[in-house]
Each structure stands twice: as structure tokens, then as C-alpha cells.
């Protein structure tokens, strides 16, 4: 590991910690962008240029913009909150996080690189046939997973009854929420 790589890793960990510790949601989102940018730099350094740029475009660009959009709209960036609603669930969350980390690490333990093709710097010309050839099923599975998550999220915010079954005063309220 070269000193530059070590520095990049340090940045990666530091910004990651900042994302979860900063009180201000906007600052946390900024730390997230910094994290993504360092990650993209690491990808490029590892000769996965396509992945690096996609990381910037999709994650640092589009997704964090959406995050910020929601944060600003909800005025969630107020910093101090009156009380912490998650006091009891904190140990549980810690346990879960450790569990996920354990699963991921154990997955890494036995990992052998599944292919040894030359990816020519991870250019799309080389990545395309691979993703849409040998790994097509995996790609579809990941896509399906994301879609399932989206559907669930939409289902969660649906009103309990159809809108036209509500009483007039209820409907007004609901409409405002849905809009």
C-alpha cells in the first residue's frame, strides 16, 4: 500500500465517520459527497475508470442531489433536535450494523476473483459484454432488488384507504399530505 493510497483510505474512513456523526444533515450529505469522490478516485487509481466516473455521476451527482433536495424541503437541516427518538433502538442498530459488517467481511474472506479477463481499464467496450453476458442474471437480480425496494417504499406511504372513500375533512388533509 502506497502512502497515497493510505491517505485516500484515511479520507474515506474519516468522511464516512463524519457522515454519521455530523449533527447538521446538509454537512453530513457534503461529507457523503467527499466520501464518494475519494472512492471514485480510488476506482480510477485501480484502473476501473468507467466505474469511477459512474460513481461520480450517479452517486455524488444525482443521488446526493436528491438527498439534499429532500433535506432542504423538509427543513431537516436544523441541526439540534429537541429529543432523540431513537434512544432505545440505538444498541439494536449497533448490533445490526456489526452483523451486516460481519456478513460482508465473511463474504470477503473466501472471495476469489471470479474472472481474470483483461478489462482494458474498465472501459465500457470491455465491461458491456461481461455485464450483459456472463453476469446478466446477477445484474437482473440486483435490478429487481432495487425495484422491490422502490415498490415497498411507495407502498409504505400510501394512504390506508382509497382517497375517495375518505370523509371530506379527512380527504382535504390526506390530499395535502399526498401532494
Amino acid at each position, binding site marked *: 500500500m502506497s502512502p497515497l493510497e493510505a491517505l485516500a483510505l484515511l479520507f474515506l474512513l474519516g468522511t464516512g465517520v463524519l457522515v454519521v456523526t455530523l449533527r447538521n444533515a446538509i454537512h453530513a450529505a457534503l461529507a457523503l459527497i467527499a466520501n464518494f469522490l475519494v472512492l471514485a478516485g480510488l476506482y480510477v487509481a485501480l484502473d476501473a475508470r468507467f466505474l469511477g466516473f459512474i460513481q461520480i455521476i450517479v452517486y455524488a*451527482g444525482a443521488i446526493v442531489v436528491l438527498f439534499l*433536495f429532500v433535506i432542504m424541503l423538509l427543513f431537516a437541516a436544523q441541526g439540534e433536535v429537541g429529543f432523540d427518538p431513537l434512544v432505545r433502538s440505538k444498541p439494536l442498530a449497533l448490533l445490526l450494523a456489526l452483523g451486516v459488517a460481519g456478513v460482508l467481511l465473511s463474504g470477503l474472506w473466501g472471495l476469489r476473483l471470479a474472472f481474470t479477463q483483461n478489462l482494458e481499464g474498465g472501459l465500457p467496450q470491455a465491461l458491456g459484454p461481461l455485464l450483459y453476458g456472463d453476469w446478466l442474471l446477477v445484474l437482473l437480480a440486483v435490478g429487481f432488488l432495487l425495484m422491490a425496494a422502490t415498490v415497498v417504499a411507495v407502498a409504505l406511504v400510501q394512504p390506508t384507504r382509497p382517497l375517495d372513500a375518505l370523509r371530506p375533512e379527512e380527504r382535504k388533509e390526506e390530499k395535502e399530505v399526498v401532494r
Partner: protein
Amino acid sequence: MNYPLDPYWVVALKALLVVIGLLTAFAFMTLIERRLLARFQIRLGPNRVGPSGLLQPVADAIKSIFKEDLVVEKADRVLFVLAPLIGVVFALLAFGAIPFGPPGSFFGYQPWVLNLDLGLLYLFAVSEMAIYGIFLAGWASGSKYSLLGSLRSSASLISYELGLGIALLAPVLLVGSLNLQDIVNWQKENGWLFLYAFPAFLVYAIAALAEAARTPFDLPEAEQELVGGYHTEYSSIKWALFQMTEYIHFITASALIPTLFLGGWTMPFLEVPYLWMFLKIAFFLFLFIWIRATWFRLRYDQLLRFGWGFLFPVALVWFLITALVVALGLPRSYLLYLSALSFLVLLAGLFYSPKPVRKGGGA
């Protein structure tokens, strides 16, 4: 395609040249735009400083540097300072990837700063990151007008960036490379890309207008509605930095459209290395100013509807057609015919104009 790399000092020199060139161009674009807008509105425009107003940018620079630099009490101080810097840096970064002439034509070196094999993705990434300048400025100001401006900018970003990206896929599929030099060379050999992808060209040009936040898509800073939009609370040099960002985006957009669709520095006849590129840039700069002098600003929901309901589907359909032609190995002349057809459809739209239907029979 691989070209010999320049020594580092030449690259650094060229980067410096691009930055200085862009900043000078920005300064004079403010003057040119004001003069042209004035002439479009039958006025004279600024003509007092120096011979026919040529020193106006200098006066403006001195004024904006020495003005009082206010930081609002409710502002997030760090981000308030950081935001204009982010904007300018990412705006400046994009220009380096654009080729200005044939390889080796810059005193024996290459006429570009960066030659990335993922050049288009680089441009895309940089232009997306530049939005954060506007975005953070609006939030860090602690003012509702600024916040509204930046919310608008992010919403419009989401609505046009999709059409923009997919419009770019058509030329990428045809050329088979994301490298800007390759795209220009392909156009030199096979004819300019707007002949093959006229709808994509149109969508890209419109989306580029939105990207540069120019009329009719200048919602983030709609003066009449939001005071100044995201830079309401900014003054002095920080405000000047925002102007700089805006104009550099403007210049970059006018340089990218010809590079991607109009043959870049090439010309079928009378090829002079840099001349045509500069002429093409100048043409688009003029076109954008002309549009600004003429058209009105779209409403917020109209922009969203336009982005999702028109730009996105048109780009998508053209992308599918191109993909079909490329995948099935059909002759490329099919695309030429279809492009011409779409051009005819546009012309027909110009000449066929139904009377606008008034709803509710108002005044």
C-alpha cells in the same frame, strides 16, 4: 485512439492558458452580451468606459472586488464561502477536455489539456458536480429566496439531465467511443453527427441551455420572482464568482454542442485549425444571447413537464432507433434519412400553427 502525451509542464501551461482564456472570455462576454441585448432591444448598451465601452469589464471587476463583502447573519459561514468556489472550479474543469484542432497542432503539442478515453463521462460528471455550487449557495445563505432558487435548480437538473444524457448516447453508439477526439475524428470522416442524429442534437442543444441556466430555463435566478435566486445574499467578489460560473458554463455549452454534433474543429472545406472552432463557439454564443433577448422564461412546472414529457421521450426514441441500426448492422444512411425526416417534421411544425385555444374565454 492514443496520441503522444505532452510533457507535464506543457499540460500545466495549457491548463493555465485555458483558465486565463476562459476568465478573459467571461469578462468580455458580459460586455458583449450586454451590448447585444441592448441592440436587440434597440438600446445602445454600456458604452461609457473606454472606447465604445471596451473597458467596462475592467471597471466591473474593480467595482465588484472593492464592494463590501457581506455575510448574512443566518448564513452557514463555511459553506457560504465554499459554494462559489465549488461552482467556479467545476465550471473551469470541464473546458480542458475539448479539442480545438488536429493532434499536434498546438506548436507541436496537442491542442487539448485532457485526452480521456471517457471524456464524455468526465464532462458529465464535472457538470453535475458544478450544480453543488448553486445548491449549497442557496442553502448556506439562510434566506428563503435563495433556498427556492437552489431547489428549483436541483429539480430542473433532474428533469433535463436525463434527456441530456440519453441524447448523448446516440452519437456515442454511432462512434463507438466516449473519447471526444474520436468523436471529432469520426465526424471528419463520416460527416457531422447532427446529420445522423438531428433529434438528439436538438434535445442536447435545448438541454445545454438548461444546463447553463439561461433563458428560457433560468429559473434558479428568476429575478422577477426570487429577487436574485440562489445568489440573493451574495455580494462583492463572491457574487462575481457566480457570474463567472454562469458564463463559463455558457461558453462551455457553446463549445460542446459543435464538438459533439457539428464536427468540432473540422470543416469540409478550408480547414484552418482553430478558426472554425472559435467561429462555431461564437455562433452558439450569439444564438443563446439571441434567444435570451427574445423568449420568455418557462414556469417551473412547465420546465419539468418539458424535460420529462418532451426531451426525455424524444431522446429515448432516437436512442432506440440508433441502437437498432447499430445492433442489426443496418446501413447508416437509414439514420440520415430519419434525421432528415425529423427535420421535416420540425419544419412542418413551424409552418403549421393552429390558433391557440383559450381556456375559459378570458380576456
